[in-house]
């Protein structure tokens, strides 16, 4: 199992998170875009308050058990963010019999980030919601 990477978030003072990025489709490109734009800065051994599972992209029924396994493997305290229309509700694939209608059917989601894809700024705003909560 891939271990979570640690990031600091310059736009949100005090926020350092361990993010396990589960990029399942095109939305995951935006995570890379956020890093390239300096919105999300990879950091070594930054103490993190919470392990964040970031689910971005289309979750097929076939893939759902892998997402659940990744969630179960994450140490407490853990929180999950659903990133993009597919992970939120199925999005453009809402009518496909092979696609889950929202990852919240499998794991508890704390923040839903809308967009298709959401912009990198929206990712940061979503992570900030974890702090505000």
């Amino acid at each position: 199992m891939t271990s979570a990477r640690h990031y600091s978030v310059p736009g949100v003072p005090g926020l350092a998170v361990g993010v396990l990025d589960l990029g399942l489709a095109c939305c995951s490109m935006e995570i890379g875009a956020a890093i390239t734009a300096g919105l999300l800065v990879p950091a070594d051994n930054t103490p993190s308050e919470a392990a964040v599972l970031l689910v971005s992209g289309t979750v097929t029924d076939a893939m759902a058990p892998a997402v659940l396994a990744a969630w179960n493997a994450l140490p407490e305290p853990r929180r999950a963010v659903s990133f993009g229309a597919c992970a939120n509700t199925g999005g453009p694939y809402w009518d496909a019999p092979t696609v889950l209608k929202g990852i919240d059917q499998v794991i508890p989601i704390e923040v839903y980030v809308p967009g298709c894809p959401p912009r990198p700024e929206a990712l940061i705003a979503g992570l900030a919601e974890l702090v505000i909560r």
Partner: protein
Amino acid sequence: MPSNAHSLIGLNPDACTSCMICVRECPVWCIDLASHTHEVTEEGARRPKVVHVLDEFTIDFGACMYCGICVDVCPFDALAWSNETDQSAHSASGLVHGIDQLVKWFPASGS
């Protein structure tokens, strides 16, 4: 954020005629519209005319693919791209926004 970024979609309820075109063209069925008809008799008119009155208009941004088809097909420019940033929510239903919110996202004229 770039000014042409696909962010959110705003509604001008005064321009909307409840024609349902956006609702029917939406690929992900994320727009819901409810309206009722109302007879208006204008002075000097021979017959009363039937107008549609918009009751509810919601966009589920959890499902919305930001394709902009609704903005493009609206014959009355009642829908427009907003420059507001995306809004995260703590529940999937929190991404469903009605007239009260959508009107705030409709860009001011001239912008």
